[in-house]
């Protein structure tokens, strides 16, 4: 976390020069472009994906309608045999209500375009209704070949007064099975050992996928008050979303996208705080000189010699793994190298004529430091900030990878920790391992580009 570059001094490069030269550097601009991209991703994420989804990351309940270890949906573009996509229909395509002879009937339709080369894993109908009495529910599926299958016909649990009932009807439900077996004459093959979803989505002559439009109709009949408050159909597949899902059914795109603002926050906060602290510390020690310098530098030596990673681990285990404290811990180990370099640079600056002049004019110490010394070091400070960001991000990712991260704010490192725990490498779940690491690398790369570009301006000898 410390820069080991030996530096001559800050002569020459002023902030204006720095800006001008930086804008001309291709590497620096490439870094800026990636960084702007990451900021755009962060802004979109914060605006579009509600933070609640993200805070529920470690709550298995909130991911129940998602598939387990599904590949990203776009892989289908490259495959000849299309993997069934996981479809979550949150609300019906159409709802019709009619009252006839005191019976209110509601009909809800879900349309599923099924053009894949494999059977779905399952299908789940989930609903919640507010009612009185005991309404009837019937689910039918109209298939592409014009045939229809009655899946279930049942009465909902009766209730004396208005109450809310929620239920998930699974394709493995035994009454669905029974109903299908009663209609099994339509299949020209023996349906005995074939699972329900493989029958519902099968052609009639052979047990192969029947592609096309399926319409699931849910009819309810009630004499008294009945109101559907939520209704959804899930057709379980093996492909889902932009990045796929993990073993705990979490949508990896959510974790990955929310990880971006988090990583930028951690990286930039740690880098800025470390460099500021190191700069002030080093400049003050160098400017004061003598005993103050000696004492401050010995303290610097002590912190420098502490092994960072073991200590970060102990700190996160014994004190807290909250993300804000973690940022603080990273700063504790981040400022040391910068303090060393700033000190030696301020030693060179303080003997220059204008500092002497300012002293003679009776300017206060703090004014001399802030007005005359620190501005000289700013180009170096900017380069150091850019160079320190990737180290902060990878260190935090490393700690999270060991399982020591803040569980309420999952980072890329934590996604990789889970991937490693669930043996993603052994099971070939590349979509779980690749994207978080690539994001870490990309974020690091943008700052390394910017840092190197700034560095070669501040240190002209590296150019050529």
């Amino acid at each position: 976390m410390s820069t080991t570059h030996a530096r001559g001094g800050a002569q020459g490069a002023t902030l204006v020069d720095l800006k001008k030269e930086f804008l001309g550097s291709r590497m620096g601009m490439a870094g800026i472009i990636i960084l702007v991209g990451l900021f755009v991703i962060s802004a979109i994420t914060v605006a579009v994906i509600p933070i609640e989804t993200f805070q529920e990351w470690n709550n298995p309940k909130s991911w129940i309608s998602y598939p387990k270890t599904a590949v990203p949906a776009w892989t289908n573009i490259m495959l000849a045999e299309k993997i069934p996509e996981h479809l979550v229909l949150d609300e019906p395509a159409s709802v019709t209500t009619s009252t006839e002879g005191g019976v209110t009937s509601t009909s809800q339709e879900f349309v599923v375009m099924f053009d894949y080369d494999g059977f779905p894993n399952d299908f789940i109908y989930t609903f919640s209704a507010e009612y009185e009495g005991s309404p009837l529910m019937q689910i039918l599926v109209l298939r592409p070949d014009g045939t229809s299958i009655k899946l279930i016909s049942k009465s909902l649990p009766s209730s004396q007064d208005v109450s809310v009932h929620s239920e998930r009807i699974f394709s493995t439900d035994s009454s669905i099975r029974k109903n299908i077996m009663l209609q099994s004459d339509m299949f020209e093959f023996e349906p005995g050992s074939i699972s329900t979803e493989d029958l519902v989505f099968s052609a009639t002559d052979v047990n192969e996928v029947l592609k096309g439009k399926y319409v699931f109709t849910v009819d309810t009949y009630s004499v008294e008050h009945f109101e559907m408050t939520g209704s959804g159909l899930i057709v379980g597949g093996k492909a889902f979303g932009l990045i796929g899902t993990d073993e705990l059914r979490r949508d990896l795109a959510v974790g990955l996208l929310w990880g971006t603002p988090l990583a930028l926050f951690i990286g930039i906060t740690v880098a800025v705080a470390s460099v500021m602290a190191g700069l002030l510390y080093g400049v003050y020690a160098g400017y004061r000189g003598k005993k103050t310098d000696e004492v401050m530098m010995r303290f610097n030596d002590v912190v420098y010699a502490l092994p960072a990673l073991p200590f970060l681990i102990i700190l996160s285990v014994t004190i807290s793994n909250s993300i804000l404290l973690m940022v603080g811990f990273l700063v504790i180990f981040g400022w040391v190298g910068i303090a060393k370099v700033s000190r030696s640079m301020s030693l060179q600056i303080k003997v220059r004529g204008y500092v002497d002049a300012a002293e003679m004019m009776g300017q206060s110490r703090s004014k001399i430091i802030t007005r005359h010394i620190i501005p000289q070091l700013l180009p170096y400070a900017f380069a150091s900030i850019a160079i320190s960001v990737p180290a902060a991000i990878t260190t935090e990712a490393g700690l999270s990878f060991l399982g020591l991260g803040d569980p309420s704010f999952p980072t890329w490192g934590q996604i990789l920790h889970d991937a490693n725990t669930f043996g993603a490498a052994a099971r070939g779940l590349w979509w779980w391992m690749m994207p978080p690491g690539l994001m870490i690398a990309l974020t690091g790369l943008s700052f390394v580009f910017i840092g190197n570009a700034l560095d070669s301006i501040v240190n002209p000898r590296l150019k050529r």
Partner: protein
Amino acid sequence: MGLRRYAATRVITMFAVLLITLFITIALVGSNMDSILKQGIAYQVRTEITEGTTAAGQFQSVEEFEAFVQERIDQRVAILGLDEPWYSPQRIGLSMYKILLLDFGHATFLTSDLGSSDVRDIILEKLPRTILLFTTATIIISIVGIFLGALAGSKVGSAVDRLTSSFAVISSSFPVWWVGMLMIFLFAFTYQIFPARATPDLSPEDPGYIGALLYHMTLPLITIVLIGFGAWAYLVRNFMVGIMQEDFVTAKRAIGIRPRRIIYLHALKNAAPPIVTILALSLSGSLGGAIITEAVFDWPGMGRLYFEAITVMDLPVIIGATYVLTAFFLISIFVADILYGYFDPRVRTGQ
């Protein structure tokens, strides 16, 4: 200040740092350590009473039984000196003194492969493996890095230079452990060339153990070298670029000394001091990074031991491993300092 005096002040600083590190470690884990030890004693006393000679039936009431248990627990706590808080000077002094003499006590959960629970045995068993893997890797990295860097630095702007520089920049932003996961995915599962777990199945006493260990070491070694050498080459390249602009190089060129000789003999010799210093530092730096890398590859060294100890909160092992890691880190900083002071006398005056 002479080199000897310089070395002496460094030794004193380093020893102070070692003590401070030890103190901070004990301070951080001390309170946890006490509660864990006390829980252990309570459990021990209860099992002894329920299974042992004292029949549970002789007590009139539950309260009486509890009082008896509590009395026994308090007695034992007092014998072990745990009635004083962990921050009392005697206890901290005693534990620091013991640890300085490498007496780390017994591990709570972990054992060595040979079954010993003495923390010193465990560490002595794991340490050589970490040194084997990371020292080998660092040596390969530095050799490849120095030659590639010298080559790139002598031909600034050439294809070799640009390739080296961009590889360095790109590889330095990848976390080693993530690349490790991918390497395992590729070379252990997709193409089954190397074992996925770096721990050999043989017992350490088996004659084939060394061979198995080396075979299991290949994948982590390749990964560390792959991610590491770019940064090294880039560093050496930057030193070389500076040196190749010096007057003496121009003079040597002018009198017709072959370019290759200038690069590898004269220029590299001048770049040696910072390179040697950084080599010493990176040797120890790699030991710290070992914690995550070893966890990924399941390499049975200090890093994995540390990780396991943290997972089960085996405090004596944590303290012992931190101490040993710090000691190694300090020794290499010290060596680096001395080398730097030897090569560059300006450092010794503190300017």
